[in-house]
């Protein structure tokens, strides 16, 4: 397989973009991405595109992408893999280039969550992820899907709600410096612990907001990378893992086996270990999920995640900063865009250009888990070095 690099990356701010439709957000993200290509990009260079979108706002996603960006002469494939969509779109584009089929490809992720009345959003989105006869009628709201895991995790591990609050405080603090983040304010552990309960054990500050946004990457083959930049960010590894879909079929709910599989694939492909990672964007739709993911990704021993937050190891300035962008928790979470936006953040991190820069970051890992907890995608990036 050929080596593949990210040569451009850009995104819209994540927010409740009531004033912007999907057809506005896509050109905005693409233009910022194109502008980040050091030596410039001619749209005609793009030979194929992969578009990650969960919903089908304003029409079928591939067509919307091709049409809004004026790319109707190239193949566009829509990727939908629950909350792992973004990093799976990266993965598919990588294989398209690594195989030799294409030299330059576009990856876009986007979603418009705040497009329907908030009273309808839950049932609409739940309809996409739940068994209609067995689970849908139960009122298994998005936080409840993850809370079922985290409640058991808190029961078995030494971690407590205080540790979840520490994750929220950290990610909120990281987002303050990120102009693209949705929730740019600091909170305290006390605020997090005293916030209204959403789904026990999650309080308001344990949960991601509902977001709209888009993010884009330009990927290029090793042979042509020099045309675009002298500072390519190499995609060292990609992985995708799955698990049983219904919660009642997951034997151990203190872990996400999908993540373990995806991380093993991606790090294996890169020939790296978790200890090699300098910075990570980890799927923190709910704070407890970040803790569990530390263990699934190999950053912490089993039931040892709480020690990392206690030691502030995963804060910027610590030994393995996680979610310097603010994460889903504070940067926001338009599901199709989330994984791509993680790679935008990490592209900037390993090139030393991030808003909330991690010193010396070279190896970076992006991680999603979704479906609600039955699919995970992991991408490992390496910076151009000194």
């Amino acid at each position: 397989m050929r080596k593949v690099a990210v040569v451009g990356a850009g995104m819209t701010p994540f927010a409740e973009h009531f004033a912007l439709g999907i057809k506005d957000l896509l050109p905005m993200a693409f233009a910022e991405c194109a502008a980040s290509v050091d030596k410039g990009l001619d749209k005609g260079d793009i030979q194929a595109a992969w578009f990650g979108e969960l919903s089908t706002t304003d029409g079928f996603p591939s067509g919307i992408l091709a049409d809004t960006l004026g790319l109707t002469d190239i193949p566009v494939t829509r990727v939908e893999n629950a909350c792992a969509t973004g990093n799976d779109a990266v993965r598919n584009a990588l294989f398209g280039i690594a195989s030799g089929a294409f030299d330059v490809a576009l990856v876009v992720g986007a979603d418009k969550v705040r497009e329907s009345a908030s009273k309808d959003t839950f049932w609409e989105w739940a309809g996409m992820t739940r068994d209609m006869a067995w689970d849908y009628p139960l009122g298994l709201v998005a936080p409840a899907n993850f809370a079922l895991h985290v409640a058991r995790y808190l029961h078995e591990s030494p971690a407590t709600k205080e540790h979840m609050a520490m994750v929220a405080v950290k990610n909120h603090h990281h987002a303050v410096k990120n102009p693209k983040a949705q929730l740019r304010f600091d909170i305290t552990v006390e605020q997090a612990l005293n916030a209204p309960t959403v789904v026990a054990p999650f309080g308001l500050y344990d949960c991601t907001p509902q977001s709209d946004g888009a993010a884009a990457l330009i990927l290029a083959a090793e042979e042509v990378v020099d045309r675009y930049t002298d500072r390519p960010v190499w995609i060292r590894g990609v992985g995708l893992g799955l698990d049983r879909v219904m919660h009642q079929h997951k034997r151990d709910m203190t872990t996400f086996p999908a993540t373990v599989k995806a991380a093993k694939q991606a790090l294996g492909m890169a020939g790296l270990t978790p200890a090699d990672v300098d910075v990570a964007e980890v799927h923190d739709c709910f704070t407890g999920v970040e803790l569990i993911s530390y263990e699934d990704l190999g950053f912490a021993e089993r039931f040892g995640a709480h020690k990392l937050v206690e030691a502030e190891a995963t804060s910027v300035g610590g030994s393995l900063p996680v979610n310097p962008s603010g994460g889903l928790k504070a940067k926001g979470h338009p599901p199709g865009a989330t994984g791509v936006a993680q790679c935008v953040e990490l592209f900037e991190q390993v090139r030393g250009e991030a808003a909330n820069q991690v010193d010396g970051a070279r190896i970076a890992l992006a991680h999603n888990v979704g479906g609600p907890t039955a699919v995970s995608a992991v991408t490992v990036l390496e910076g151009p070095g000194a």
Partner: protein
Amino acid sequence: MTQVSSVGTYLPCWGSPARRQVGDDEDVLTLAVEAGRAALEGAAGAERVILISRELPLLEGGNSAVLLAGLGLDPELEVSERLGGAPAALDALSSARPRTLVIGADLEPAGAAAVLTSGEGLSVRAATRLTRSLPVRTRDASGAVHDYGDPRLLRERGLLASVAAAGGEKPVAVAGTDRKQALSLCTGTPPELPTLGASAAFFALAALADAGITGTLLGTEQASLTGIVVETGPARVNRREPPARPVPRGKYTPGSEIPISLAAYERAFEAKLRWEAARHPGSDELDFPPRYRVGQDGSLSSDYELVPLPRTGTVYTGVTVHVPVPGLKTPYSLVIVELDEVGVRALVKVTGTEPGTVDIGDRGRMVLRRVAVRSGVPDYGYAFEPEGSMRTADKEAA
């Protein structure tokens, strides 16, 4: 003459001791299933079912299938759904053949009681019947209720006039009227009854059977009445009557109709309402919900059999939803229950206790409830009722 082998009763845990209320997940069918299962416990089963109520939920059809599935009875059995109160319940009982399950169920106050007839047991026989018209309460096809509002008229020209006209000996119990009237009409002290409709007749029968009292049991409704003579003989009484406590406070959030797929409903119905899992040939592992399998060699296995699942289990994990959910009342609790000894877990709502009071490791039983109403369709399934649901403290609120 009819012989009664057992009487089963059910009262929801909500409301006051004198006036029970259904939970949000209960209706006449779930009440009837609870009482019916209590009557059937330890019995060989029933050959036909009669349900008497004035609050049948599926007036266009569908009650019977839910009832038979919830009771674990053969879908080939005859079910008759009858509109009526206490007189209709006693009429149904006194004319029932052996091995008939006769259930009365009411919503206000809430309760249900079921009687299983047999070739032996407690003997009852028809004594008096009088049907007269005094429609002090009416309800039209749209469900609108009109109350005439004259209790003395009802007492004088309804109850008392009919009792006088019917004649016969003084009753030992009266169902379908309030306690004060019952005391004035009866010899001795009549049993206190928790309901006023069809189920009241069978709550009265349960009380007489328990106390070994013989005599006339009168069922009344407006100006109509039916009397039966309760004689001697053994009848087993199985009561599911938890202590009463206040309905948990919650907040209903208005929303659009929750959609339903009736195709999915129909496919799931048998396993979901009968609480059964799939067992594929040559496999000990159960699939719940049932599903097709594909073997290692790619071969399809679709001819599974449905086998009953245990109805007791232990909470593996659980959460309580506090955030407003459009179309639902919050808070509510969801749990994953590890069913006893089959390696099967179920994701279900919690019932019969205040939200937020169930913990990992708690034990309980699976009970049929109306888990949702979607686009006008009551969606029945199982809920987890914790053992000894006497606790009231909200541990999470602490």
